[in-house]
């Protein structure tokens, strides 16, 4: 048990920082910007402490902080991280820096409020990843909507009001049912601790209903087909920073939810509904891939590409239940989940970078239409090089991080079902098609019009943003081992968890999971 409340600090420091920035007012934008950057960097450095102090040999929760919050209902301020949440926290604090930098000169309307919103967002998202109490998780989960709602609505594009209200209501609708499920589970287990939830036994009907309630919440967030329609709207209308946060972090929270709640708490229901998730994932990969192909708007195209890539994540997670029915292949299930995790982190870098790239053009020309561009490479050579690199990563070029996750998931899927894997592998063609075609039309060719001819190449600030992300993409692509190692033990434990029957003894004869009898769980603090 760590004495120093590092997680609390990583959550609340940016929130306090946000309030400081807000109090600094709009009178001196440069002071508020530098203060915001200071807090963002400090938070990132602190979160690096989580990585350094993390012990990757245990699946137990680390950096645990636990104290009573609402004692009458056994709600606790209960924080902790394992190998799944820790990398996501570092990703969050890392991406926030770029968001702050990206808004540096572009945001002229109330920059202090803009920076505040992102700092508060940062703290809340770290809270989501580190909460181990159901209600605490829900509070962070919902609180996240408030800054994002304001970010899209205030600094967004022309149709921002429609987009932001749609975004809010979609996610709100998804999550309130999760709240009911959480309260129901509280009455079954006697506490709101997520770890207690995971050890609880529930009948198959209850499990299925809880699974569906969670599915609604997480599927909206991921987003999965058919509840994905808010995402293109929100992405297109959001300011660049908002799009980056949405794509890089918020979508991951949905995926994280599956790993933390749906799969370990209701494994039997998950197993019996695997077909549904796999079907929805494959639809996301294939159908949404085709939808991306025909987009005229660059942001919309990347938004659809995000949905397709997140389809890989859910696919990687849920094939566990199919693979696990054949114990000889159990290493495949670990690979599936790890592949999904790597895909989430990598997509965080790549989609964030792509949205920053679109932002660079939008700041100069104020258009996101593909048709308004052409031959950008002639006037912006450095920029063109970065775009091509990130586009290749998005298409899953070996050597970039985009390849690692997809490859692991496809390999694992082969162990589950040959045809699923074939369909999933189609993405290598589709993603290449829609990304590279966009690059061809925007970057290459003759200089299309006067606006393109007048473009100036990226400045130092923008180069810094893109270069650091490019290094991250390359590093993860060439040497993913540190990331995989840090989560390996946790994922192993998770696979045991999700293949252990959680049905009560009366229904246990119906169990299809590998371990029909409850095994002695790893004690979690």
């Amino acid at each position, binding site marked *: 048990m760590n004495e120093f409340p590092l997680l609390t600090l990583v959550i609340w420091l940016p929130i306090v920082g946000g309030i400081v920035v807000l109090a600094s007012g709009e009178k001196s934008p440069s002071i508020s910007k530098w203060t915001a950057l200071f807090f963002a960097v400090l938070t990132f450095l602190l979160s690096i402490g989580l990585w350094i102090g993390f012990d990757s040999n245990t699946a137990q929760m680390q950096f645990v902080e636990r104290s009573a919050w609402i004692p*009458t209902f056994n709600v606790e301020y209960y924080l902790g991280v394992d190998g799944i949440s820790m990398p996501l926290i570092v990703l969050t604090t890392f991406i926030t820096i770029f968001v702050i930098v990206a808004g540096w000169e572009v945001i002229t309307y109330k920059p202090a*409020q803009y920076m505040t919103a992102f700092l508060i967002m940062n703290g809340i998202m770290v809270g989501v990843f580190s909460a181990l109490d159901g209600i605490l998780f829900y509070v962070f989960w919902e609180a996240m909507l408030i800054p994002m709602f304001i970010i899209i609505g205030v600094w967004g594009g022309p149709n921002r009001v429609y987009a932001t*209200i749609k975004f809010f209501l979609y996610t709100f*609708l998804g999550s309130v049912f999760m709240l009911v499920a959480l*309260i129901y589970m509280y009455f079954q287990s006697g506490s709101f601790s997520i770890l207690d939830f995971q050890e609880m036994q529930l009948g198959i009907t209850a499990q299925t209903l809880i699974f569906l309630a969670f599915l609604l919440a997480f599927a909206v967030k991921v987003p999965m087909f058919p509840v994905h329609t808010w995402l293109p709207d929100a992405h297109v209308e959001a300011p660049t920073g908002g799009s980056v946060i949405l794509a890089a972090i918020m979508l991951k929270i949905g995926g994280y939810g599956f790993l933390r709640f749906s799969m370990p708490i209701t494994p039997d229901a998950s197993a019996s509904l695997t077909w549904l998730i796999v079907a929805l994932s494959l639809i996301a990969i294939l159908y949404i891939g085709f939808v991306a192909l025909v987009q005229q708007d660059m942001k919309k195209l990347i938004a659809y590409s995000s949905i397709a890539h997140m389809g890989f994540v859910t696919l990687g997670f849920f094939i566990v239940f199919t693979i696990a029915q054949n114990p000889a292949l159990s290493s495949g299930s670990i690979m599936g989940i790890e592949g999904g995790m790597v895909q989430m982190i990598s997509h965080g870098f790549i989609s964030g970078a792509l949205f920053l790239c679109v932002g660079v053009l939008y700041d100069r020309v104020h258009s996101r239409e593909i048709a308004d561009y052409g031959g950008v490479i002639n006037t912006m050579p450095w920029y063109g090089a970065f775009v091509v690199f990130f586009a290749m990563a998005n298409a899953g070029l070996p050597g970039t991080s985009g390849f690692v996750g997809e490859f692991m998931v496809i390999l694992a899927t082969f162990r589950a079902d040959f045809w699923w894997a074939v369909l999933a592998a189609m993405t290598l063609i589709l993603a290449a098609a829609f990304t590279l075609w966009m690059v061809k039309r925007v970057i290459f060719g003759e200089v299309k019009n006067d606006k393109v001819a007048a473009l100036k190449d990226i400045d130092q600030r923008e180069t810094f943003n893109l270069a650091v992300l490019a290094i991250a993409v390359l590093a993860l692509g060439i040497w993913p081992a540190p990331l995989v190692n840090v989560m390996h033990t946790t994922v192993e434990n998770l696979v045991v968890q999700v293949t252990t029957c959680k049905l009560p003894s009366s229904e246990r004869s119906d169990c299809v999971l590998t371990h029909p009898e409850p095994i002695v769980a790893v004690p979690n603090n």
Partner: protein
Amino acid sequence: MQFDVANLIAILPEIAVLITACLVLVVDLYLQDKNKDVNHTLTLIGLIIAIALTGVVGGGDRQIFFDGNLIQDGISDLLKGAILVVSVLGFIYARPWLKDRDMLVGEFYVLGLFAVLGMLVMASANSFLTVYLGLELQALSLYALVAFDRESKKGAEAAMKYFVLGALGSGMLLYGISMLYGATGSVEFGAVAQAVSEQGMANEVLVFGIVFLVIGIGFKFGAVPFHMWVPDIYEGAPTPAVLILGSAPKIAAFALATRMLVDGLQELHADWQGMLLILAVLSMGLGNLVAIAQSNIKRMLAYSTISHVGFIFLGLLAGSTQGYASAMFYAIVYALMAAGAFGILLILSRKGFDAETLEDLKGLNDRDAWYAAMMTIIMFSMAGVPPTVGFMAKLLVLEAVIRIDLLWLALVAVFFSVIGAFYYLRVIKFIYFDRAVLNAPPLVTTGGVRFAMTFNGLILLMLGLFPTALLSLCQSAFI
């Protein structure tokens, strides 16, 4: 009836409010027009003394005074405190509005104070007679307050409607009380409860009595289908009057319901539960759906009240101590939110202009970022989004409902709260996403108003983050 000083000590807060009301009535006669602020100061001092006295007198064990007519327990202490605090906020918000219109006269304060007195009496009533006396004192004062702006035809119309429908509600209530008296032979809650537990449901008059009682409660809360008066009154009455009748009286209505149904008729919980359930579902549904269609923010808040009443009923119908405590928490929190929301409308108004439509909120963030932030907290709290206290209130109510295995009801409730979120979000849209109209003058407010609004907004946030203090008060009240 024996006279006992202990009796008087128990009602010290009420006495303080009564003295203040009489004092204002007299002092006002001798005040010149430019000194009318004295009324305001006197009222606030009186109310703050009453709050202090509530703290001093309260906290003891459950005691009954005045031959069983008044009670002092955890419920009365907490409800009185909440009513007084919300009323203080209301009077502070109302002052600039009244001053701008040369209406800063004693009558407003006298009527307001008598209404507060009525509410306090309801909070500590221990017999049907006392509860009814308190109710009428409150209602009659509020009828007059609604008609306070003599020049306004809309106000007069609203007052008339309020009076007729309010009288109808009171009539129903009185009718129910008379039946209960006939069936049980007493108006005192303890005696009624005892008689009921001996007779059970055998007595048909008793059942009829409860039906009328619940109808009366429905009227006073403004629950569907007895809600017809709410939107019209909210729209027609001057905003300060709406502020006073839309906030603290909800706490008093909760007192009315909990005193009669819990103190008196807990035994028949199974019978009134079903009735409240229908009222709750209808209120949440109709309130949230119709609010979407409103462009007048006062009317929108009226429908929002109706939907919140549905949530309060959810806690009540659970019939457990947890349920009552959650409903109490909800009622108090709602009164704070309503006071803040109408307070913002008053801040936005100025001489010759009343903020009434959603459009009037346009660009509030540009005009005053702090008030914009406070209104945003209030709206998110009404929508039930964490980390505001509105979420905690909803969470507690849902918990109580799921505890008695009414899972479907919880699902209905969360579904309607999602629908409700839309119109609260729309308010925030006007505040943040729209730019102020060009000729909008800057907001002029006093330090007192700014302080009160800051308190009001931040307490909604603080209670959301640290609900334990208020929650344990609510829970200990019902144990």
